[in-house]
């Protein structure tokens, strides 16, 4: 076998690729194709489904769930901007001012990953609860009105999502900023750029690959999230993920759920495409 391979070296990379590639084709590509075919079927669980190439399902689904689609897009954008505003200064501090505390600070950033996503979100529910230890106390001493609440508002949902995906933003930004030679920034200030100009013209452009990766890593999970909206929100904060989850797992309306999944995925891919054009042709590989 080894002898044969030595004479057919061209085969070796394909042997390496085969098991993993096949796994991705069978359990990623094939499911997407199945989803597409399910979306185009009509019928019900009881009577069975038939492929009728019902392309009308796409405009129908968009029309029926336009509020939730737009809200998901809006929350995703707000979360990405917020996470960037919080994450960039933090990554910058760790990269340029972290000194010997760099590793400890990075560990603190990924600390939330050591507890589960669902426990973190339930913890936020504790923290934001109407009579919880923060709001309850503030109400008792009269700073807040009794009727004031955070839970079941967009603020709770958006802050929950931002919290959950913030580490995904800090890490790629840190990696990009860490690579920058600080002498380049010094050179800019030596040439009479103000600190702000140096940041805008040197640091920021050099970290743009990190900005790209970070915004994808927050935007994609944020748009598709449904756990935060379910645990921290009310009916007025329902996102498209909640709709897909309910249609798939509760109502068993497979065609409409499949159609919405594809719409969500297409929307995200189109956003990534335009975003990468905006940031001057970032590679489409992470």
């Amino acid at each position, binding site marked *: 076998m080894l002898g044969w391979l030595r004479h057919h070296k061209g085969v070796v990379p394909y042997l390496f690729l085969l098991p993993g590639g096949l796994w991705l084709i069978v359990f990623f590509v094939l499911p997407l194709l199945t989803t597409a075919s399910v979306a185009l079927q009509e019928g019900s669980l009881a009577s069975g489904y038939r492929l009728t190439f019902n392309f009308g399902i796409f405009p129908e689904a968009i029309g029926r769930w336009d509020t939730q689609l737009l809200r998901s897009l809006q929350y995703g954008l707000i979360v990405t901007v917020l996470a960037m505003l919080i994450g960039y200064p933090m990554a910058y501090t760790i990269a340029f001012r972290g000194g010997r505390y760099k590793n400890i600070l990075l560990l603190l950033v990924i600390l*939330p990953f050591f*507890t*589960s996503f669902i426990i973190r979100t339930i913890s936020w529910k504790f923290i934001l609860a109407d009579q919880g230890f923060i709001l309850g106390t503030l109400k008792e001493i009269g700073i807040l009105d009794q009727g004031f609440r955070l839970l079941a508002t967009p603020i709770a949902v958006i802050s929950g999502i931002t919290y959950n995906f913030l580490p995904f933003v800090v890490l790629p930004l840190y990696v990009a900023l860490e690579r920058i030679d600080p002498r380049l920034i010094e050179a800019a200030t030596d040439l009479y750029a103000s600190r702000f100009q140096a940041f805008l013209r040197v640091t920021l452009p050099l970290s743009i690959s990190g900005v790209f990766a970070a915004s994808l890593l927050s935007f994609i999970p944020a748009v598709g999230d449904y756990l935060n909206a379910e645990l921290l929100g009310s009916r007025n904060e329902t996102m498209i993920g909640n709709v897909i989850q309910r249609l798939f797992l509760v109502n068993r309306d497979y065609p409409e759920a499949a159609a919405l999944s594809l719409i969500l995925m297409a929307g995200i891919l189109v956003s990534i495409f335009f975003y990468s054009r905006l940031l001057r042709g970032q590679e489409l590989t992470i």
Partner: protein
Amino acid sequence: MARTTPAPERGRPFGERFRRSLLPVFTALVVAYLSLPILVMILFGFNDIQGRFNFAWQGFTLEHWGNVFSRFPALNQALINSLTVAVVATTVATILGTLIGLALTRYEFRGRGPLNLLIFLPIATPEIVLGASLLALFVSVAAPLGMATIIIAHIMFNISFVVVTVRARIAGFDRHLEEAAMDLGADEWTTFRKVTLPLIFPGIMAAALLAFALSIDDFVITQFTAGAQTLTFPLWVYGASRIGVPPQVNVMGTIIFLVALVGIVLWLYLQRRDVTARPTSLNE
């Protein structure tokens, strides 16, 4: 290193000192924000609750630590399921992903573009779409949902992350070391085992750790592929959250947190030792 040594603070005007402290203070606040839910989780594991709801502080007790593994047998089973899924999925995904990483960095072949796309797309697809489409596939072939389907799904979403992590490590690797080994008479397999593998091993370990963390914590894809009978730890907690999460969940969360923390600190420590010990370890 010189740039990170702080200049003497005395002698600087107040405005300058204030401006220089803005970023560290901001970073400390963000760290507090990131840690707050964890502290709440730990604290409320000690809450002496009277009813079903663990929302307000009612007094200190160690009771839930005493019965954390006996109060809810189903929770234990869920934890065992989570660990099983994570171990199997991590092992398989790490092997498959590392092989792809090796092929991508060490060989010239046709079809690199489509392959990169195949690896990038699962990362760019929201979890709910991955989970929903896998469910669509499983339903259409009438596959019984349970541990097997969860593991299949976890291997799938972990492969891409392993490839990306391992590839980054192999890319910065000096090929001359392999050539040197071959020049000294080692065959390809020996070279791989004695030179390549030890050098890329930290990358493989990092990828495996990432895969394990992603797998044990996954909620969305698991919810879609688990079916009605099988529960993992996150799924159990989610089910309980509708009627009130018992403090034993906080205790278990705290235990997992501490194990992970000790593990990662130990790993970082060993890695640091490894770097200093490298010249001797090559002589083995």
